């Protein structure tokens, strides 16, 4: 199946835009809805989508077969587990040849950064939890709970992967310092109350 240029749709009325509107570097009204549209089109829009390979059958006895399909000819070993794979089972991920099993295991373990779609950002969470009750002063009392939680999340962030953007650990350090300050304030307050009760 191929994609042709006329299948680039108007973002307003979703009708195909005429190719004369492509790569104009200025807004041109859509012939159907008159919405001002600028379209930058790239060669991928006209590239034929290559069909997937199904794997060749073994015709000569003694040929190495795929680990998952014993009737199919092996074309490459898995770069992770070394199992022989047919063209169907070979998954190309960033230049590595992997079998579906290793791909799934790696995805679950978070070994393949390019497959990750979500991460918990512990350092950011720690900072938000540490700062929010301080900023919203009426919730200052919540720091009794949030301060230890912020420290816990801050410490976890040193052992877990944080943002994929590779930001520094500054937020985690800041969260821990702020939370420690809140705990010190609570301790001093309790000591003051205790002293007043004793005297």
């Amino acid at each position, binding site marked *: 199946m191929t*994609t*042709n*240029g*006329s299948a*680039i*749709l*108007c*973002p*307003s009325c979703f009708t*195909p835009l*005429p*190719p*004369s509107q*492509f*790569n104009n570097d200025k*807004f041109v009204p859509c*012939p159907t809805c008159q*919405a*001002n*549209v*600028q*379209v*930058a*089109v*790239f*060669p*991928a*829009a*006209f590239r034929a*989508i290559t069909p997937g390979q199904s794997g060749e059958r073994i015709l000569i006895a003694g040929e190495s077969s795929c680990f998952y399909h014993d009737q199919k000819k092996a074309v490459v070993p898995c770069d992770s587990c070394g199992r022989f794979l047919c063209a169907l089972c070979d998954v190309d991920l960033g230049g590595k040849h992997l079998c579906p099993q290793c791909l799934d295991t790696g995805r679950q373990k978070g070994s393949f950064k*390019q497959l*990750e*779609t*979500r*991460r*918990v*950002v512990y350092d*950011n*969470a720690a900072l*938000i939890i540490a700062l929010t009750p301080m900023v919203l002063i009426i919730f200052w009392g919540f720091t009794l709970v949030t301060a230890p939680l912020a420290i816990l999340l801050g410490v976890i962030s040193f052992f877990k992967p944080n*943002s*994929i*953007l*590779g930001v520094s650990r500054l937020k985690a350090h800041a969260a821990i310092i702020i939370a420690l300050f809140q705990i010190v304030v609570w301790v001093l307050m309790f000591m003051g109350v205790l002293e007043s009760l004793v005297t």
Partner: protein
Amino acid sequence: MAKAPKEYRKLPGRGATLTHYVRLYTGADHLLQVASTGFTESYKRFYYRDIQAITLRKTYVGKAANAFLGATVAVLGVPALFTSTPVTIVLASIAGFFAMGLGANIALGATCVCQIRTAVQHEKMASLSRLRRARRVLERLKPLITGAQGELSSAHLEGIVGNEPKTPAEGLPPVISATS
């Protein structure tokens, strides 16, 4: 020790909803859209080799916001010019707040909707809602995409323009072919 080079570079623009904010980053071989709630981040990758088109559509949201903010400033601010009762001072303060919003909206410029199209999806770029920023981002993305895909030759484009499908005659109903 030498500092490791950054894997992602931030692009201008930030979009926000009630629950998360969105930013765009350029990577070595893909564009990364990060939607962050503060506690979690969700990622969408658009590989340069797969991007088929980037479309920008002008919208009138900015103009509508200017009209609304301008009218509010006028309604609340004009009485304060003629009287100085405590009520009008309060109204003028509110008008000042709206005037700041109006100034910011004018400074940010015209609004638009930006979409990225690949073979399998059309994705609206929530962070590119201002035309100036969207164009700046487009100018930064174009060399990266053409670097991965090559230039679209003008001869190729002219060939497509020459073979443009003819639109059906106006007023006539669509014809459904009897052959299967």
